[in-house]
């Protein structure tokens, strides 16, 4: 038989499936107005506003405001995508049966997960490009050297792992609307009080607690990399710890449907 619909089943190569899934999810994320606001617009406002504010208010920064704040804004961008955007997108995928539908496609579960991670990196790459361009235009002068780039990338990877596992934890347990509310609320709280944009030293008494939060650890790791070209190790271990904790809890509690 050689009709139009004559069966010829088969899966695409796994890598191609994962790539397709990544591109699709990244495109949907960047198309969504709220997510774009979260990914790029808010970090740019925080950067520009923070540098302006530092002219009038003393944050106790040791560097020029643009040099002190840019690493934290990059950390904020990673947090917004890996945590908030991922949680909201996954929550609604569960609600609309997307995950169930993909569960009947050739894409295996770990391929779906790999696709999500790929999508996060694509969006983060876009964010880093936009934010760096804005920062350089404002006179950003990061620590010079190749190791700065590598350390920044390492902070981004570890931060993504920690926040993504926590984002999936929220999305896998709560209903879609509750996920939307919780992911935004946690983002706002961490942005304001989580030592992500401003260094922990700016928070007075909480200075020694905040670096243990994933937001504080990611912020400090970024600042270590981009201001001093240095990796202190402690923040990296903390981020890894959050990633392991988040992954274990998600693996136990996540419901695909």
């Amino acid at each position, binding site marked *: 038989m050689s009709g139009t619909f004559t069966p010829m*089943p088969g899966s695409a190569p796994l890598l191609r*499936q994962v790539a397709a899934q990544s591109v699709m999810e990244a495109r949907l994320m960047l198309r969504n107005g709220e997510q774009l606001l979260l990914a790029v617009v808010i970090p740019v406002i925080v950067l520009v506003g923070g540098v302006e504010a530092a002219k009038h208010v003393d944050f106790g920064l040791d560097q020029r405001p643009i040099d002190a704040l840019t690493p934290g804004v990059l950390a904020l961008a990673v947090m917004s995508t890996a945590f908030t955007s991922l949680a909201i997108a996954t929550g609604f995928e569960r609600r609309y049966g997307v995950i169930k539908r993909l569960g*009947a496609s050739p894409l295996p579960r770990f391929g779906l997960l790999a696709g999500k991670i790929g999508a996060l990196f694509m969006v983060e790459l876009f964010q880093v490009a936009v934010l760096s361009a804005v920062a350089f235009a404002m006179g950003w002068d990061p620590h010079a050297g190749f190791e700065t780039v590598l350390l920044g990338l390492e902070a981004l990877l570890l931060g993504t792992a920690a926040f993504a596992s926590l984002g999936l934890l929220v999305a896998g347990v709560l209903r879609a609307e509750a996920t939307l509310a919780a992911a935004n609320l946690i983002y706002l709280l961490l942005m304001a009080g989580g030592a992500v944009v401003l260094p922990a030293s700016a928070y007075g008494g909480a200075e020694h607690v905040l670096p243990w939060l994933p937001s504080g650890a990611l912020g400090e790791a970024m600042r270590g990399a981009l201001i001093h070209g240095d990796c202190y190790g402690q923040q990296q271990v903390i981020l890894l710890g959050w990633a392991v904790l988040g992954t274990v809890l998600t693996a136990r509690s996540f419901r695909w449907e």
Partner: protein
Amino acid sequence: MRYGDKTAVDALDLRVERNTITAVLGPNGAGKTTTLETCEGYRRPQAGTVRVLGLDPIKDRRDLLPRIGVMLQGSGAWSGARAMEMLNHIAKLHAHPLDTAMLADRLGLHDCGKTPYRRLSGGQQQRLGLAMAVVGRPEVVFVDEPTAGMDPLARRTTWELLTELRDDGVTVVLTTHYMDEAERLADHIHIIDHGQMIASGTPLELTRGGTATIRLVVTKPFPDGAPASLQAALGPQVEVTPISDVSLLVTGPADHTTLATVARWCEEQGVLPESLNLGQRNLEDVFLEITGRELEA
């Protein structure tokens, strides 16, 4: 298959022949979706075995999935994804997908290719779901209520596609609560109710025999005592019910003898039939006879 203490599907013995369209027919809540989802590997049966293409839908899931196509009831797409974007995405997960433009054209989706999923009409979402189920060129497709809520044109388009799939060598398993859909489309029908099979066979086998009706309307009023004389001519296994002075209803086996007797009786009485309608037993009657309930309640 149980949910809590409610048994959704129990001791269902169901076989699907390759290269056929098989309909699982039953009222809402009969266990149709549960049966399908067990075949698709979404649910693990508490008892019994399920094999699809000789594979265990749970244990051999990874081998089975590329070979089957699934159309879920409701959604299954990102609300912000455009129709064609969604179809192309599913196509990319397969090794030898169909040409998506051709498929969209066949299902009348070409006008709404750029429309986000959430703004598609219910019927368009259904047809996109069907397109997603067949785009990977599967050997078996499972479609759950494929035409629920569709307008007549979209319904016919869907039926034509399912028939062509079968003709091209695809095995189609569909659930429906529309008896006309099962009767027109399916090669085999399994009627289930309360999670149990109550009847099974080809449409012809299921509707053969049993009672039928003949509605007779004549051009001028019957002579006095007409129903009684027809009743006498037809014998006791047939029931004659007068409706008006020009029409009556004959209920019983609508075989040659009955028809010939009615015709001969008209001649004897000197009345000319204006219309003679045969009501063949349909699946609705079959369901009603077995369960005492209407199918579409």
